[in-house]
């Protein structure tokens, strides 16, 4: 087994608080929900398992018996479509399984053979495109599926995942964390003050006495 502290990205002998903090962040990073439409979901699961083991090991050896790693609270083994299987027709179920297992060619063949292009067809084709890296088409198809059947939560969730991922990366903390780009420069501070002064003068008051 690898050094559990190393797995959590910490130095040897880090405090329990640090371990917990690192653990929480890593679980968020490798959460199955985040890798749901990604071809590397299996690797993410493996990574999460490793993190859980490391966390369990440290907590157990720290001796306070608080063993409540992520795995125990929620089963990470089967991510994905589990909840909705019972409602699906045979065909839809098969295609979902094929997409989930990465068998894209066969899934595409089945989709092509479907006669009716209903909302579920758009949804499945969208998921398949998403996994294959055809994001533009995927986005259009998922949106179409939601439009066709606005009450279907499964479709809506898939579309939400896509836009969450888009905004999540676009506004990632690393990008927005250091603020040298966002802070106003001298020029815009002066103009703002000038505007504020003019507005005050309009109302009869004055912000900057000299002008």
């Amino acid at each position: 087994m690898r050094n559990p502290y190393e797995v959590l990205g910490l130095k040897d002998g880090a405090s329990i608080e640090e371990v917990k903090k690192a653990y929480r962040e890593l679980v968020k990073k490798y959460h199955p929900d985040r890798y749901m439409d990604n071809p590397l979901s299996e690797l993410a699961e493996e990574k999460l398992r490793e993190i859980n083991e490391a966390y369990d090991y440290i907590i157990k050896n720290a001796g306070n018996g608080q063993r409540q790693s992520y795995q125990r609270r929620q089963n990470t083994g089967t991510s994905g479509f589990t909840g909705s299987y019972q409602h699906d027709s045979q065909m839809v179920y098969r295609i979902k399984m094929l997409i989930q297992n990465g068998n894209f060619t066969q899934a595409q063949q089945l989709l092509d053979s479907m006669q009716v292009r209903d909302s579920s067809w758009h949804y499945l084709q969208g998921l398949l495109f998403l996994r294959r890296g055809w994001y533009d088409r995927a986005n259009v198809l998922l949106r179409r599926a939601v439009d066709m059947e606005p009450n279907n939560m499964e479709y809506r969730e898939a579309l939400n995942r896509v836009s969450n991922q888009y905004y999540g990366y676009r506004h990632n903390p690393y990008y927005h964390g250091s603020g040298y780009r966002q802070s106003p420069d001298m020029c815009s501070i002066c103009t703002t003050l000038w505007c504020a002064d003019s507005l005050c003068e309009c109302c009869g008051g004055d912000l900057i006495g000299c002008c």
Partner: protein
Amino acid sequence: MFGYITPDKPDLKIKEFEVFRGYYCGVCRAIAKRAGHRGRFILSYDTAFLALLLDSLNSSPVSGKPGRCPVHPLKKRFIVNYSDVLEFSSDINILLAYYNLKDKWQDERKLFSPIGLFSLRRGYKRVKKKHPDLVRDIEKGLSALNELECGRCGQMDEASEPFAGIMKKVFEYSAECDSAKKTLGWIGYNLGKWIYLLDAYDDIEDNIKRGAYNPLVIQFQYGENENIESFRQRVKKEVEFILVYSLSEMEKAFSLLDVKKNHGILENIIYRGLLIKTRQVLEMGAGCDEKPL
């Protein structure tokens, strides 16, 4: 390649910047060694990133020493030592520059192309002999690209597929295990997609004026009398979605990679540099002015 993959320089530590430049200079030196000094002109940031990423998977510390080169004779600079990774990255640089020049010669008959081609030919042949499978895969991808261009493919996803596939092959080529291969491949695929489409957006004006092929012009049906700037604005949202989404997928793959060193530089490029470049090209359309470091 295109030189879009750059760090956000002001956000790098000085030490990190020196290391990044060390890789850049290292690749340059490797190119000179294999394709002669004239070959140095083809150096690209993208292959410096390739070298940086692949080398960061090795646990040995960054090795290099200060040295001089003919391009900057006055000052000694930190240069990363010659290694398999640098050799591979410079091979890729030579290969892609060769195809690029060949393509330019066939399309536009630019005068300097045959001269460049001639000096790269030796390097190209050497690379072909060393990595025959990879070269075959890349050439297959390029001919698929050519076919799509001739057929005037009007779908962003489809048009970017061959180039994304080429980058996938390049990135996964030297992976040691299956999981690294998958992860690196997905990084390459999404970066390739991003590069291709960013370049397509960057070239809209030029392509329209010359009547050359551009997938965006076809997909979003550029009207004869439409103002080019308003066309750029019209398609911006859709293009931005696919660009940023590709980057977000690449970031996920990167998170799974077992990176041993250079975390700061890599994270700077992946979480800031690429986004800033995307924004620059989308807002101002001034992306391709690659300046040497």
